[in-house]
């Protein structure tokens, strides 16, 4: 299976839940904001059920990159995307595709916790109803249990979500995303505004979600990437060409223990970035 492309497949280090079958194929993806090119011709395959980390310094285009995958990039009027993204072999840019369905399938958790100004339960109920799910209250409970929030909030479900702490809010946002039964979950530095304990909870959660969902996580925290990821893509800003690019992609172990690229060697060795 893809042995030539992925030489590490032989000594497979991934968890069994993580299939080496690409879920997302990114082909020659380029993005510019107005005249400014952010990245160009990115090619990447994301494996089914795996956690793929995206690391790299600030402002090299990581957030912009993942927001192409659920087409949230389109809210920026100046953004121009070219190339293609295939999910299960189907292009997400197909004009027949229902954008709301795509975003249900490809959930996102933002950097800042972003509960809506509704009650705790309504934050999950509203999207469930919108997507015509049944057994709403069971699903709410299940999602909240999955993120380990149920016991903390089961008696205050009708209170405003904004009353929760930062870590609780972020887990509520994850519950809201997984309640919709996505196939892919994008996370943009989900722990960067959380305290260490909440971070720990979120990392455990990512471990639990692995296998059920294909996860792409941006993180600044290299130790965290090392703990949670199966694969890692390193983004870097090329000062000469003035664009971001992926300088190395591979198994998490390889990127951290045995990187081929000199910049990555220095970066994970803590010398750069």
């Amino acid at each position: 299976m893809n042995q030539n492309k992925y030489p590490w497949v032989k000594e497979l280090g991934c968890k069994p839940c993580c299939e080496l079958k690409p879920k997302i194929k990114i082909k020659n993806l380029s993005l510019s904001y107005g005249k400014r090119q952010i990245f160009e011709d990115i090619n990447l395959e994301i494996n089914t059920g795996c956690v793929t980390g995206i690391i790299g310094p600030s402002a090299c285009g990581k957030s912009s990159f993942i927001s192409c995958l659920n087409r949230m990039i389109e809210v920026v009027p100046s953004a121009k995307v070219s190339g293609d993204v295939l999910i299960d072999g189907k292009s997400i840019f197909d004009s027949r595709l229902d954008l709301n369905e795509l975003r249900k399938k490809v959930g996102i958790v933002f950097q800042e916790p972003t509960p809506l100004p509704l009650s705790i339960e309504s934050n999950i109920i509203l999207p469930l109803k919108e997507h015509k799910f049944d057994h709403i209250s069971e699903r709410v409970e299940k999602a909240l249990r999955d993120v380990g929030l149920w016991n903390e909030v089961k008696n205050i479900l009708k209170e405003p979500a904004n009353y929760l702490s930062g870590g609780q809010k972020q887990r509520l946002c994850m519950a809201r995303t997984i309640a919709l039964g996505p196939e892919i979950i994008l996370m943009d530095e989900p722990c960067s505004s959380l305290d260490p304990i909440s971070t720990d909870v979120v990392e455990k959660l990512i471990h639990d979600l692995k296998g059920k969902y294909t996860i792409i996580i941006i993180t600044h925290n290299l130790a965290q990437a090392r703990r949670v990821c199966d694969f890692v893509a390193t983004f870097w800003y090329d000062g000469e060409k003035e664009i971001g690019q992926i300088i190395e992609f591979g198994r998490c172990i390889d990127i951290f223990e045995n990187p081929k690229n000199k910049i990555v060697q220095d970066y994970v060795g803590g010398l750069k970035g």
Partner: protein
Amino acid sequence: MERMTKFLAWLSAGILLLILVLMVQDIFVNSLRHFDFSFLSQDPLSGGRKGGIFPIIISTLLILGVCMIVIVPMGLGTALFLSEYSDEHPKVVHIVRKALEILSGVPSIVFGLFGNALFCVFLGFGFSIWSGGLTLAIMSMPLFIRTVEEGIRTIPKNYRLVPLSLGLGRTTTIRSIIIPYALPFVIVGGVLSIGRSLAETAALIFTSGYVDRMPESLSDSGRALSIHIYDLTMNVPGGDTNAYKTAMVLIVLIFITNGLFTIVLKTWYKKRIIL
């Protein structure tokens, strides 16, 4: 220099406050001397010189009611259109916005004449509470819409991104996120419009008219407080005292609306938006 600036700032604020105090004092002193609560419950007698203003208060409230019933849904709808659909229909939004700007600069007497032509004559409502309320609604609409729209524009970016990222349709987003967020601004806009409407005479003379009996229905003519004051001062010799008393009632009414809605807003903010 610093002290000069501070002094000037204090001075202008002080003068403003002084004028307000003097005005309120003048009105209250002049009316409280003869005030009696029966003034609120009696019909006016001999052109308003004697008796009370009961039917006039009722007419005023009815006119305001009609005005609010029209202005809230229409104004909110337009504000939503301007804020939510400006990307899709930039031309239409631009035209509507310009039209509102022009409307807000039109003197109220013109609204009065237009309201008379449209509601009283063309639509056949005659001199009536309906015509008055609708005219006030048109007149206050630009102010109301601007208040609500500017409020909606302060919505945090996340409250727009998150619904999109969850695949929520626009209807759901508007109904569940944007309208609840806009409601406090609807209240503020409503209070401003009520204030403006209570003060209005020119737009009402030709629309709701100046019959000072109790209106039998919304299709009946009714005299608003401001018109009563105007009429007593200008056309009724010896009407000054009652004009003062009516003015006091008007001012108290404005205080009450402001106070009431401030309370509503505060509890609201505590419960829903902040934190």
